[in-house]
């Protein structure tokens, strides 16, 4: 019942319309009316498969031949969600072998790993089987080809959360980070695993993770992901109140600087201003902190992150407005008017 090989060089089309076993069915062409728009020019072979697909759909036929045809339709266009839905209806109506379906969907995903429909289909089959045992290895395989495939990571998170497969995931994340410490998806997964297992409340966990981050920063300083992770973990506990952290970051500034380090420093200073004990804006400690923060803005705007010059200057002005009080600090950036609108060419 397979319609020949999908080979565009073939002169003869073993079309459904020529087969006796399909003679009872009237093919249904696509009907775009008198003036089709954004029309796709299908070959005779393509139209034939889909004309018969539409015919089956119309009568909601539940048969083996229908099931076989869905595979052909998928091969021609794996993004057609109606075909996938119909295939699922048939899988259940005909009590098809779901293990075989797993093999089938595995192959398709390997060929087309960025298609939404194939991953959704796999999830449905896994749910019906109630068996996630192949998933982590399969997803790891897909990630080995593209370590940032969003669909793969999403499916992985679903499997782990649904079937409580947290056990080995942190180790998996660490191996990926060893391959590429800049893999933002892996950092996200790290946060996902820890927040659903130990959580980030325990000081021991925070300490361990902070150390881990600082080590990764030493190895590869120019990495936004690690700084985002560190800040994300600490930002609601007060960046400026983490014992010893500011000192470590100031040390790293000398040898492992980056725009992300400087932005983190700025955020520490801002946190100190917001939540620091001396609330009076005329207080010496407050003024010093403000000066330091404004120096960081200047460094970023003028040297270390010039593409965001306007933004860093804006942040400096905002901070100045909020904490500057009556006295303008030393040689910090003076309060400038809002910048002129940018002109292009």
């Amino acid at each position, binding site marked *: 019942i397979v319609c020949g090989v999908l080979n565009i060089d073939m002169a003869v089309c073993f079309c459904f319309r020529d087969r006796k076993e399909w003679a009872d069915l009237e093919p249904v062409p696509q009907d*775009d009316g008198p*003036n089709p728009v954004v029309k796709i020019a299908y070959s005779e072979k393509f139209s034939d498969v889909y004309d018969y697909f539409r015919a089956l759909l119309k009568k909601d036929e539940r048969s083996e031949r229908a099931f076989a045809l869905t595979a052909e339709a998928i091969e021609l266009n794996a993004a057609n969600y109606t075909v996938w839905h119909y295939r699922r209806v048939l899988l259940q109506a005909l009590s098809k072998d779901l293990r075989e379906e797993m093999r089938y969907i595995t192959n398709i995903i390997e060929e087309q790993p960025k298609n939404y429909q194939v991953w959704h289909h796999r999830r449905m089959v896994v749910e019906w089987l109630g068996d996630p045992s192949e998933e982590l290895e399969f997803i790891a395989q897909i990630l080995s080809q593209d370590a940032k495939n969003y669909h793969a990571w999403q499916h992985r998170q679903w499997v782990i959360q649904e079937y409580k497969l947290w056990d080995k995931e942190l180790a998996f994340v660490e191996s990926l980070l060893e391959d590429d410490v800049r893999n933002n998806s892996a950092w996200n997964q790290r946060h996902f695993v820890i927040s659903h297992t130990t959580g980030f409340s325990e000081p021991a966990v925070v300490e361990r993770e902070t150390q881990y981050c600082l080590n990764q920063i030493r190895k590869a300083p120019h990495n936004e992901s690690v700084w985002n992770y560190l800040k994300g973990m600490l930002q609601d506990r007060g960046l400026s109140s983490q014992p010893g952290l500011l000192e470590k970051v100031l040390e790293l500034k000398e040898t492992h600087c980056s725009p992300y380090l400087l932005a983190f420093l700025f955020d520490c200073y801002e946190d100190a201003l917001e939540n620091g004990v001396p609330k009076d804006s005329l207080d010496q400690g407050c003024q010093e902190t403000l000066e330091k923060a404004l120096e960081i803005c200047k460094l970023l705007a003028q040297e270390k992150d010039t593409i965001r010059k306007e933004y860093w200057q804006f942040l400096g002005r905002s901070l100045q407005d909020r904490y500057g009080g009556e006295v303008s600090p030393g040689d910090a950036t003076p309060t400038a008017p809002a910048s002129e609108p940018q002109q292009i060419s």
Partner: protein
Amino acid sequence: MAEEEKQFEEFEQIDFLKDRHVRFFHRTLQVLPERYASLETTRLSILFFALSGLDVLDALDVVDSNIMIEWIYSLQVLPTEDKSNLSCCGFRGSSHIGVPYSTKGPGVVHPYDSGHIAMTYTGLCSLLILGDDLSRVNKQGCLAGVRALQLEDGSFYAVPEGSENDIRFIYCAACICYMLDDWSGMDIQKAIEYIRGSLSYDNAFGQGAGRESHGGWTFCAIASLCLMGRLEEALSQRELDRIRRWCIMRQQSGFHGRPNKPVDTCYSFWVGATLELLDVFRYTNFEKNRNFILSTQDRLVGGFAKWPDSHPDPLHAYLGLCGLSLIGEPSLRKVHPALNITQRAFQHLQQLQQTWRESTNSCGGQH
């Protein structure tokens, strides 16, 4: 080569080739080769990219509006005589299901015919762009169809038969409700909860809770909240500042969608529009952004690609133009950053909505 000629060539390299893009979209409207088969079920959204692209280029005059409008209405899933299919109503992406062509009701009974939330959204936008008054849109059907797609957790399916569910379809639902001026199509509170739940540790939005934050999903989150009029209710000032920071850090030359990923033309819109909605787009570097977008321009066939030296496609062609529009490219119309249509089309919508309200008031009852 003489000095003058060399300079002219350099200038040409970053020249914005408006006519090529008009022709690119014009060709898109006609016939596409079979290798575009994967776009079959989303053809209406491709129409939207082309029409809105031409609108941004102020070149809609090359389009036969009436033909387009009829074709769009032929994609509407209308209620059947007994109205048993209300939860399936909306717009299809194309004629692929095989329902006979018709622009009038009642709806056809078919076991698998249903709308797709993104096609309802782009269908309505396309009608507006073409100057249609939406009088043939079955609003009751569309809203029932959208309502039926919302899950307990606040997210939406794309189709009533089931599909993946995530923040993209919340955005589509918000646009539909906004355009039809009727929020009975969704439970706003639940949608806000899902959006908040998608806020990641690094201060941007993933496709759902726990997932990696991403420029496209961040746009969906922020634009949805803006359309709902709930931005400052749903997010604190501190959260908004942190989101601004994440978004503005996406600029590398053009923009990328996630930290440590390559830049891609479409993010000049997804992230750019988000920054505009958050009122800090002016602090980005316009020149570098423009130079990147133009480096992905296809000088021969027109359109834009995701990267330089890659094939253009309708989505990147459209969003590349929108990215340029945001930075004020002179020959382009302004784009509404939340609804993603031109301000011109948006004004048409506002006029329509005014008419609807007046009509409701004068009737003193149901419209």
